[in-house]
């Protein structure tokens, strides 16, 4: 019984540390998301204009 209580309720200090840990990843996550958005924007700028038409017009002769 005492063991179970210990697991259910960590000491207040530990709980604060846990809370701090939960906050950190979103900031890192935001940076990653920002970098990815920048990359997609860059790719948007060089992507062929009309996707449907371009893909439809790309036809190759069968090779080996």
């Amino acid at each position, binding site marked *: 019984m005492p063991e179970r209580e210990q697991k259910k309720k960590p000491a207040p200090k530990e709980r604060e540390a846990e809370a701090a840990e939960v906050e950190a990843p979103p900031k890192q996550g935001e940076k990653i998301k920002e970098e990815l958005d920048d990359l997609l924007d860059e790719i948007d700028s060089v992507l062929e204009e009309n996707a449907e038409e371009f893909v439809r017009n790309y036809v*190759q*002769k069968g090779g080996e």
Partner: protein
Amino acid sequence: MAVPKVCGIETEYGVALRGAADANPVLASSMLINGYVEHRKIGWDFDDESPGRDARGFARDGAAPPEVETHLVNTVLTNGARYYVDHAHPEYSTPECADALELVCADKAGERVLSRSMKAARRLLPAGQEIVVYKNNSDGKGNSYGCHENYLVDRSLPFASLVRHLLPWFVTRQIFTGAGKVGAENGANAVDFQISQRADFFEEEVGLETTLKRPIVNTRDEPHADPQKYRRLHVIAGDANLCEVATFLKVGTTAIVLALIEDDFVDKDLSVVGPVAAIRVVSHDPTCRATIELAEGGTCTAVELQYEFLRLARKYADETGLEACGGETVGGMILDRWETVLGALERDPAALEGQLDWVTKLELLRAYVERDGISWDDPKLSLLDLQYHDIRPERSLYEKLVRAGKVERLVDEDDVVEAMTEPPGSTRAFFRGRCLARWADAIVAANWDSLILDVGSDPLRRIPMMEPLRGSRAHVEALFEECTTPAELVARLAS
């Protein structure tokens, strides 16, 4: 018994003439090559070409061997590569390399040659027209073109042994060689995204064809070397890769597997039931959890079967060493990377972004799906799929990812640029490339296994090059320093 795994990659590139009403891909391909070549083009010597000869020991009637088109543009470069038009595609065949790392560099140099060819062709075209080249294997409409590998193999190894072990090898190695593709083709079941560009196109287990009813194991028997000693295994069951790690593993692991087959190290039956169906099953599951049936009973995933090959490879490395597979250093790199890649494919394939083309592409596509809220049949995803392989440096999505620091490179760009004009020092490509660099005007014709020189007096002299490892820098560099004319070279070689 294992002969040194001299290897090469030949790539048919997709080609599009933009801005022209009537685009002829043969003409466009010719323009690329003509544009690139600064010196007099060397005519390819076709005498020894025999694409219709089958490794199983007969010339089959009724089977349709590929045709050798002799009137199309065809040239040898000073790096020992062959650059030519094949079936309406520009094709670049790397010089012979002695190990997987050397081949990664040579293959990447081929991309740079195509890139420079596009620039050169632009000068020959009217304003508003442009030839664009793609290093991929399909147009998404049922037309496929190949990226083939070649490996030197011991002729005394029965071809049937090769077939038996290579079928499960090619079915499963896709998990790291695949370049990724949106959708399915050639009658295969619909899928949002699959691992390999080529998987849907394989319809037979073994055979000679390359353009239809494609076989997983190709039986072409044109060794381009001493036919008593050597076989050239011609592999058509691979994707064209941009990621250097993928190319490195594709070639490096296959070389080791071939060597261990030659040295009789396969200690159990790894055959799968119905390889043609299995190759699609594996490709169609990007989670890498799909199972295939084993001939000896039971099922396993492609990763699990690959672990079996890795186990054999490590045993082979311990007991025999990897001298035949490019040496211990490169061989060790191959084994270690193979192992970490298999581990990641088991736990979380996304971790291999930047190493494997299909994963790198899939992560990019997923990012677009999430940002734009589009579905998998949106043409934007097919466009991204195709433009990943665009060889124009400013338009290539692969190159964008490299510049964003998202892709792992194994070779220095300086070495790649050098490999555009310099042959590998390790094989007969060195002799071929050096002769061409020094005496282009004297070379009447060239083939993989010979050169024909005009020494200034009749007759023309034919220099046979039947040993792929003879003619390396170590063998002939001094010769080139001492000889100032082709006549001297021929005289020295004759003595």
